[in-house]
């Protein structure tokens, strides 16, 4: 199982971040999620960063999806760095980020 990200379908709603933490810790917060919404709002540049077990960081940038580097996974000093977070565990098969994503930017592929 793998999560596929189509960044240009992302609308930056941030529901994936929230539901990931809800699944992991039973609380609503974007701070412990395995997926991070990256926004440069002044230039409307936004996408997703996903921490996986098999591929490390996956950067869903508007210009394309690619493996990422450590610095690219930062969500700002106000947040726990993604490399210190748990990798995606597919919510034990429930893949809740894919379920709640309203634009199907995140989908599950086998």
């Amino acid at each position, binding site marked *: 199982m793998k999560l596929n990200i189509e960044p*240009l379908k992302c*609308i*930056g*709603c*941030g*529901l994936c971040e*929230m*539901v990931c*933490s*809800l*699944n992991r*810790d*039973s*609380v*609503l*917060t*974007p*701070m412990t999620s395995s997926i991070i919404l990256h*926004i*440069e*709002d*002044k*230039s*409307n*540049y*936004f996408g997703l960063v996903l921490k996986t077990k098999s591929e490390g960081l996956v950067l869903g940038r*508007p*210009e394309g999806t690619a493996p990422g580097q450590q610095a690219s996974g930062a*969500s*700002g*000093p*106000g*947040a*726990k760095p993604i490399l210190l977070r748990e990798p995606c565990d597919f919510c034990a098969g429930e893949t*809740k980020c894919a*379920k*709640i994503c*309203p*634009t199907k930017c995140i989908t599950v592929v086998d």
Partner: protein
Amino acid sequence: MYMANGRVGVVDLDTLEISELELDEEWLLSGDAVSIAEKLLSDSGGDGFVLGSGILTASLVPAACAGFVLGSPQDRAKRIAPLLGHAGAEFKLSGFDFLVIKGRASEPGYLWARDGMIEFVRAPEAKGFDSWGRTDKIRDSQGDKRIQVLSVGRWGDAGFDSSQFVVDYWGGEDKSGLGSELGTRNLLAIAFRGMGEFEVSDPEGHLQACLRIQAKQMARMGRSFGIESYDAAFARGDFRQLVHRPIACFGCPFPCRSFLKIHEDPGVMEHSHKEPGYLHYDIPALQKALESGMSAREATEVLIKCARAGAEPVSVIAESMRSNGNASPSSIDRLLSSGRDVPKAGEDDLGGVFARSFGDGQSYMKCLGLGLCPRYWAKAGLDITAVSECAEPAIGVPLKR
């Protein structure tokens, strides 16, 4: 306590004393955050303003993105504006459900709320900055680009009735002149960021109920094309040619926000130009600009100028039409640099404003009181029974009707 911090921050700018109040859980669960804010304002002596969030703000309920700003009444009229984008949710995550601000600082600065702490940061040098410069300055100084900033420009500083507060870089929420609430207090901006978390009574129940309602609404509404999905007047060629991508507020599945690029090719997806354009969601301002004969490009230029100055664009464009017989980026420039206020926009010019999302003001207040975006819920159809099905597993009790 579910879905709330249970805390109010109180800032007295006269003395720079910062204190906290605890909030009664039952009061919070009433789902009427606007009434709570009115009470807090009244208890503080009435000379102040309040930032607030709803019990559902930052939940998984569709478009649970709203906070609000409540000012002291003017001519007996309630002055309230939503706080949208990611600002409403981020405010609540900063550790406070409400923030009461009163008094006037002796020197210019901004309030910085994060992780349950608030401080007043002196920033006299930022007094000369426009709203964009203030947001940049705060994010650079604090080293975090996801800090949400509610700021004003020189029109707010001057206490003009036709000022507006700006959220990060964009305007559209404030049609009540609430920008002057900040400016007249020597308050350049309010910034917030938080690592907060909210306990949920039944996490799986909340998720499943929210998934059901989202699926139902999306099946009916389809895909959003941004602001033109909320107002067909913007489905015009010169507007569409500049559209980059729509972007949503927190938790919104059907965004009303369209980013238009005017300083680079809208098809560019890489991060290149630092200030390529503007995020349009101010329906009455865009309507007014296009009705005045401006192109979509010119309208975008004008809205950027107004946002930077912290001036409410409907009022400014209307004044340009009255005094010059036309409106253009250069006529708006002249007005913005004139150093004088303009009459506030009349009701006739404010079609599409958030406060008129519904036919009645009651539903608007209901949405703000709960933390829901009124524009989205007017489009989707406000069904309190359905909202309650999502809310009950989150807060542990049924919503009060």
